[in-house]
């Protein structure tokens, strides 16, 4: 367990013999129109390539993102772990625990260029005391781990934007990974945000697969989210969009409109302001997504979604109740009555001071 297995070693573990491996290399050489003498060079090269090391850090999280990951159908989490990456540290999935687990992490960190995946927000208030692992605060662990990382993927809205722990009044000072970089608390590295509460399984694995295949960050939007999954809003891909356009809205759950599958805007759907792949990729291997099941989108892949007013208040409704309308009306009446007194007094005194006009007053 000192070093990660090479691809050759990995294949050997999977029961592919040395002979078969060399045959594969010869076939590859001829495919690439290389002379047969190149086959050993290919074997040597493949013998040296290692699967990238991945360290998964779980902080203030509910484990929902990991649960979502394990339900991915393509690529499956198994093929991910065994074929594509070397998952050297993951609280839920790793076999080791305690000191042995932390040791695995430290070993993996010795060779720079590893990938860091984060789920859960990072509390920074009061020295970050609100979430610690092995006595180390999340903030410290993240700082140490990110130092030599190639890139960070923030999985879930908590890691991306602070998520639920950050909701008003944010007692732990929770923040997302990018925010900590912007505040200069950890080293600045390329970040891919994969928000959602949780993100769609295939989106998590798809983003990782992209990074591993092309070795590069995919094109991102202004909030650091991969455009190929987060480029469109739910609204733009929603199958109920024609009803929105016509103004046919369900007014209550299970009313006639709801049963007819009308738009859920009035029931608080945040589809228009939420960017995610739910309307196309869907959930449970493409079975359905919230709107299709009759509940409005709650906007879980957007920053501050928990503080954006009730899930059941439409986007056109006020997010909070109006707290000083009555007070303002009273203040207006006060000013108005004040002016009324002043106006009437001025008019009265002007009348009292009236000098009856005579012909003399017509000329200067």
């Amino acid at each position, binding site marked *: 367990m000192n070093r990660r297995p090479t691809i050759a070693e990995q294949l050997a573990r999977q029961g592919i013999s040395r002979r078969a491996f060399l045959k594969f290399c010869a076939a590859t050489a001829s495919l690439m129109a290389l002379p047969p003498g190149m086959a050993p060079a290919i074997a040597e090269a493949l013998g040296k390539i290692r699967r990238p090391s991945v360290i998964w850090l779980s902080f203030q999280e509910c484990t929902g993102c990991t649960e979502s990951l394990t339900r991915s159908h393509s690529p499956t989490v198994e093929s991910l772990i065994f074929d594509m990456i070397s998952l050297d540290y993951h609280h839920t999935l790793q076999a080791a625990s305690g000191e042995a687990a932390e040791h695995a992490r430290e070993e993996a960190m010795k060779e720079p260029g590893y990938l860091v995946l984060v789920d859960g927000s990072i509390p920074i208030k009061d020295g970050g005391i609100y979430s610690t692992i092995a006595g180390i605060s999340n903030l410290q662990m993240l700082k140490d781990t990110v130092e030599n990382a190639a890139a960070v993927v923030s999985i879930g809205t908590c890691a991306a934007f602070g998520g639920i722990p950050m909701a008003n009044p944010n007692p732990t000072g929770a923040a997302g990974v990018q925010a900590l970089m912007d505040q200069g608390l950890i080293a600045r590295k390329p970040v891919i945000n994969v928000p959602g509460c949780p993100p769609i399984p295939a989106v998590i694995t798809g983003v990782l697969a992209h990074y591993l295949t092309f070795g590069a960050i995919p094109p991102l939007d202004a909030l650091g989210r991969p455009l190929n999954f987060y480029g469109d809003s739910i609204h733009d891909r929603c199958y109920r969009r024609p009803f929105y356009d016509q103004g046919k809205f369900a007014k209550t759950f299970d009313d006639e409109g709801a049963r007819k599958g009308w738009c859920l805007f009035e029931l608080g759907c945040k589809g228009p302001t939420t960017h995610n792949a739910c309307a196309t990729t869907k959930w449970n291997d493409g079975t359905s997504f919230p709107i299709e099941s009759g509940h409005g989108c709650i906007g879980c892949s957007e920053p501050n979604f928990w503080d954006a007013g009730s899930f059941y208040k439409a986007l056109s409704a006020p997010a909070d109740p109006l707290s000083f309308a009555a007070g303002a009306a009273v203040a207006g009446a006060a*000013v108005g009555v004040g*002016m009324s007194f002043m*106006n009437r007094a*001025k*008019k009265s005194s*002007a*009348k009292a*001071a*009236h*000098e*009856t*006009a*005579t*012909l*003399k*007053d*017509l*000329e*200067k």
Partner: protein
Amino acid sequence: MSASLEKGVAVLKEMIDAPIASYFNSCVHCGLCAEACLFYTETGDPKYTPIHKLEPLRRIYEQEYTLLGKLAKMVGLSKPVTDNELEEWKELVYNSCTLCARCSLVCPVGNDIVYMVRKFREGMAVSGHAPEGLIGATTRAIEIGSPMGVKLPAVQAQMKHVHKDVGIEIPMDQEGAEYMVLLSSMEIMNFPEYLGAIAKIMKQAGKTWTLCSTAFEATNSGIQIGSSDLAKVIVNRIVEGAERLKVKTVISPECGHAYTALRWDGANLVGRPFSFKVLHILEVLDEFRAQGLLKTEGFEMDRMTFHDPCQLVRRGGVVQQPRNLMNMVAKDFVEMEDAGKYNWCCGGGGGVSANEDAEELRLQVFKIKKGQLEKTGAKTMVTACANCRIILEEGLEHYQMDIPVVGLTEMIAEHLAESKS
């Protein structure tokens, strides 16, 4: 001479009320008032836009009666109204406004612009910015009793003249008469047939009536120059005379502003409701007609049309009566376009006819009345206001149109059926 800017501003502060505040706050600068005003339509000069005539009053209102206006004045964002500005506005308030009120009927947000112009004149008058001609007329009205300087002897001379003409004695100071008849200087001087007509009509109707030696003048220069205090002095003579003679009804003659001054402004000027009725002569004639007391014979055969005096019709509410009376004696009576409460002003009311500076403008804007007349093809124009009559005559002469202008009461009288007894 004691006119001053301070006096003007002081009186305007008294004048501003909730309607005026509401109007200034409702104006959206749509400019439709200009399209209703003959001083704009016939000149194309936007400065004659009615609401613009009130600009200094608007500033005074905002600076005196609104919190934000007061603050703006304090920090210098809103400048106080100056004497020079009021002098600049003289032309707009007096030369190019006859108080015809057409703008008030047209404003889409409901602004009663003529109401505001009338109030603004209060400030203009006592700050010394009324036109010279009007100051002269008002002075004569106050000191002599008539804006044209007509005194009792002149009236008595006319009484004798008419007696000879129609064979009926003209009563004066008859206590207990049912009607007290007022005259306008214009009628006494230029249209003495009016008095004769009254005499004949009253005789036929069998009604008692009288002139009043201390209150024969109906016109009120005070409301044209815009001084309620002076207008009150003039109206009081009539009230005193009517109460002294214990008459039931005072008849306002064929004069527009006289009717406005007495019928609508009068009680408010003296501060109490009248104990007598006020009727325009046309209202009296129409009442007689309805009661069968007015018998006519024969018809005018020429095509005729009727010019609606603004103060009588639009501002007075005597709309249908002229039509009823016209139909009694005119065979070919055609209404002009916009007849009735939307008719166009002759251009000479509201003090404009007394204002020499305004003459050129007045003749220019007469074009609209000329156009209306031409469209009807009428050979004669009938009206019921002596001032309108003079202005119409002058206008027609200026444009070389040979069309007579006739007073309605006079025309009725000419067709009175001869008594059989």
